[in-house]
């Protein structure tokens, strides 16, 4: 809050070291994007011209850059979609009734099952260019992250503090002003954290969607995922090692260069009006703040921004009149129409499946679903038994927690399918059936959510409760029963839901794995979908995806939602 420039500041040249670094960084980034982006326009005419992958490690940075570019393009579209979808759902009561349950279902549908449909669609959209495949891969990443983000944004919009809402209405802010000054800022922190988590999850899908066989066709897109796939096909272990190292570096770089600064910046959107205990920091954000170029640019652009704002405000005038509460009758008609539309969709889907594969196939898919369910359950039980005590031990030790939490966060965002080949090799050497092995593969990605949330849960148990437990000499199992389990319960439920969702999705790639010419297959719904996808069997794809969605949605409704309720009502700290 200093009003006068300090002598120190006056002496500084208007063009600081920070600016130099900023300019350099900017041009490097520009050159990189131009170079990498040009690659997407390569000619592609299946089946004659297919870009191959050269396993020379020198090519890895380029491949990694291509994958990263895809991730960021998907993130951009996710944000745009989130803002539009969340806004409409929160502002139109009727739209809300369709859009929110739809989100709920889309969140549970296995993204990887969609690939077959989208890849064929997008290739048809961009004939003669790799753009189609590119778009399909981006779309896969997009679908893996967008639903979470849209839901978080919608919820923030619904929970804007009442008095802030009243202030903006009384001061007659236009729709655009309200959106930019109240709605987006108040949703910002949730949105950023959600985007970061989803982005971490996205690496898994970028790897899975770059090299895929759909409808009896092998499609390969230059990227780190296809690099791994081709290393697996040629049984090239050193190349795999290089890829693993690269992805570690890429994840760390995006964290330092993108997410840390964004989180540090977003901290000003915190709604609590008191200063945060420990504000997140980022060296890059500090650098950007120290540099002057952004400020000069900002000042230069102010008149234009002002004009734009005025125009947009005039297009979205504040509501002059109270909304008239809608009639009950038209509501009823709307409901009937909705039910009818849903009914028609279900009947059409059922008809398609039954007419092409028959009822027996449905039964078979159901049994396979039960097998996969069994795997997910075993995974959750074992992951909880192993990781909860470790997580609690870490969480009770603040220094250890501060040290290890980022590590666990990193592990959670690390794409497990990069480690699959090593595990596959291990299964082949030791003759372990994939029926059991796939549990381990699914766990490679899913278990970290349980560990991560156990740590967070243990950290949230108040110190005085722990001291009380020590004081009354609660020990061993009693201590777990009375203090720890109830204390971490809500956190564990959150972790469990995420882990179970991740495991179902992962089943599509982990119930069927290969190393060179050897392919291991497990009995399960994931393998069923993967099989149907590569064979291009539309009826089975539909059936498989539908069945898996049914399992996930059913499980959420019957099991997780109850636990959530229990956690919120009884074990709320």
């Amino acid at each position, binding site marked *: *809050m200093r009003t006068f420039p300090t002598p120190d500041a006056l002496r500084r040249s208007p063009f600081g070291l920070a600016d130099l670094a900023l300019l350099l960084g900017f041009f490097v980034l520009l050159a990189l994007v131009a170079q990498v982006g040009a690659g997407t326009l390569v000619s592609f005419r299946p089946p004659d011209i297919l870009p191959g992958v050269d396993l020379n490690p020198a090519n890895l940075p380029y491949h990694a850059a291509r994958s990263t570019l895809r991730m960021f393009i998907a993130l951009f579209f996710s944000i745009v979609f989130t803002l539009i979808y969340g806004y409409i759902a929160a502002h139109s009561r009727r739209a809300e009734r369709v859009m929110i349950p739809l989100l709920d279902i889309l969140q549970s549908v296995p993204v990887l099952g969609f690939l077959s449909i989208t890849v064929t669609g997008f290739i048809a959209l961009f004939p003669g260019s790799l753009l189609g495949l590119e778009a399909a891969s981006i779309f896969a990443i997009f679908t893996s992250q967008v639903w979470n983000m849209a839901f978080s944004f919608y919820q923030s919009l619904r929970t804007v503090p009442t008095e802030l809402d009243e202030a903006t209405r009384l001061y007659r802010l236009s729709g655009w002003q309200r959106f930019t000054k109240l709605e987006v800022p108040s949703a910002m922190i949730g949105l950023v954290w959600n985007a970061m988590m989803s982005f971490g999850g996205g690496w898994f899908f970028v790897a899975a969607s770059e090299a895929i066989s759909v409808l009896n066709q092998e499609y390969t897109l230059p990227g780190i995922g296809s690099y791994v796939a081709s290393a697996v096909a040629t049984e090239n272990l050193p190349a795999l090692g290089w890829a693993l190292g690269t992805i570690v570096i890429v994840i760390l770089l995006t964290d330092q260069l993108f997410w840390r600064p964004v989180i540090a910046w977003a901290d000003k959107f915190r709604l609590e009006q008191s200063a945060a205990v420990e504000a997140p920091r980022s060296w890059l954000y500090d650098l950007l703040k120290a540099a002057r170029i952004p400020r000069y640019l900002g000042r230069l652009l102010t008149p234009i921004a002002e004009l734009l704002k005025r125009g947009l405000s005039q297009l979205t005038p504040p509501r002059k009149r109270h909304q008239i509460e809608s009639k009950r009758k038209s509501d009823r008609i709307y409901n009937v129409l909705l039910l009818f539309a849903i009914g028609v969709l279900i009947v059409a889907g059922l008809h398609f499946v039954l007419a092409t594969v028959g009822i027996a196939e449905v039964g078979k898919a159901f049994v396979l679903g039960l097998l996969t369910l069994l795997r997910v359950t075993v995974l959750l039980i074992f992951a909880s038994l192993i990781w909860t005590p470790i997580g609690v031990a870490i969480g009770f030790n603040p220094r250890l927690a501060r040290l290890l939490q980022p590590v666990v966060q990193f592990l959670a965002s690390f794409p497990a399918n990069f480690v699959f080949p090593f595990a596959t090799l291990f299964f082949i050497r030791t003759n372990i059936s994939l029926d059991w092995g796939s549990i381990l593969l699914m766990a490679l990605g899913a278990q970290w959510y349980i560990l991560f949330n156990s740590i967070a849960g243990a950290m949230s148990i108040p110190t005085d409760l722990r001291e009380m437990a020590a004081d009354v000499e609660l020990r061993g199992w009693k201590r777990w029963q009375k203090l720890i389990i109830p204390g971490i319960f809500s956190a564990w439920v959150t972790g469990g839901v995420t882990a179970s969702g991740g495991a179902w999705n992962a089943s599509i790639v982990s119930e069927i794995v290969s190393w060179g010419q050897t392919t291991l297959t497990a009995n399960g719904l994931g393998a069923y979908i993967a099989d149907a996808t590569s064979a291009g069997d539309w009826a089975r794809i539909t059936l498989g995806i539908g069945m898996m969605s049914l399992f996930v949605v059913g499980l959420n409704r019957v099991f997780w939602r109850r636990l959530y309720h229990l956690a919120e009502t009884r074990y709320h700290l």
Partner: protein
Amino acid sequence: MNSLIKVDHVYKSFPLPDGKGEFNVLRDINLAVRSGEVLALLGRSGSGKSTLLRIMAGLIPPSQGQVWSNDRPLRGANQDVAMVFQSFALLPWLTVQENVELGLDARGVNRAERRRKAISAIDLVGLDGFESAYPKELSGGMKQRVGFARAFVLQPQVLFMDEPFSALDVLTSENLRGEIDDLWNAGTFPSKSILIVTHNIEEAVFLADRVIILGSNPGRIRGEVQIQLPRPHDRNSPQFKALVDYIYTVMTNPEAQVVNLQVAPLKEVKSPYAQLIPHARVGGISGLLELIVDLPEGTADIPQLAERIQLAVDDLLPIMDAAVMLEFAEVSQGDVKLTAIGQDFATTTILRSKDLFRQQVLDRIPLINSIVSTLKEKRNRSMRSDFFKDLLDEHFPNAESDRQLATAIDWGRYAELFEYDASEDRLYLTEAESAEEKQPSLTS
């Protein structure tokens, strides 16, 4: 004097959950804000005073009736008013200056003009030098100053204040209230009139020229009191004290008439589930009684008492109401006095005081009486608490019926009339109470 805002036969009701009819918040409200006056709406929580303010601001529509602003019917956000909120309602991501400019920006004022006006409003509230600070860097009092500057900058016809000082600590609110009063008395106030909503009687008498007293359940106007004192109102003058005492008396006696206004007391036969019990814990009631019993003659002046125990009136009144309802105390002329039972209750042993409490509760609180007899009729002597919640829901909105039930359970438990099992969410008769059936009670 011409009126700036007129409220004409306004009713407001909210639908109860599950379509069980409606909950009436406001009934037949008529009032006018005149040019050049400070008007206070005084009422306890549940009197619908904030709802009324929001209807007059055009933030929520009335269920019936009409609000007129500058002789134009109000159909949306009122352009003639600006509001100062209880929780400040500042956007934490905007600087002080940007927050103050908010309303001007919305009106399309250009940048230079916005800046000039905002800076002069910030100066007016004494925050110069803090233009580029963020709200989180400011103390509560400074935040509310920003709230005032944001309202001043629009130069509204009427400035609305929704309990503007109640989120601040005692000294800060005293200070800010004094400054706002000074600004008004100096004749340079940025608005023509002020409408303030408050539950603080002293604050109302100090700031206002006219105090409208609202009654609760449903909110209605009980009458108005003119504060005909020279400005600034001197807190130590006997007239000031008399006015405060008088309003205390009126507010603690829901049946009393206000000045020369004819308010016929309502006598209806009500269901036991329709009568509000005040939200007071038993510990609070007995604490209050023990405090009063030690005073000379077992009598206390309510404003003094409130000050002595540092309780906001809104927190003290329910406790006092409960004591009156249970016939432990009487209120007259701004004084509270213990009854014989109350004296006994406050001085005797725990066991005997429980007996007294049980007897009074069964006698005076129909809700608890009805719960006990319902439980007695059941063979297993227990009932899900949802059952009673449903009965309450027919008369109160969800949050209120939750509170009613919680208070009834607190009182019933203390009186050992019934027990409550939170994990099963059931009420059941205690063994003592079951046994009492066979063996005539020892207590009554």
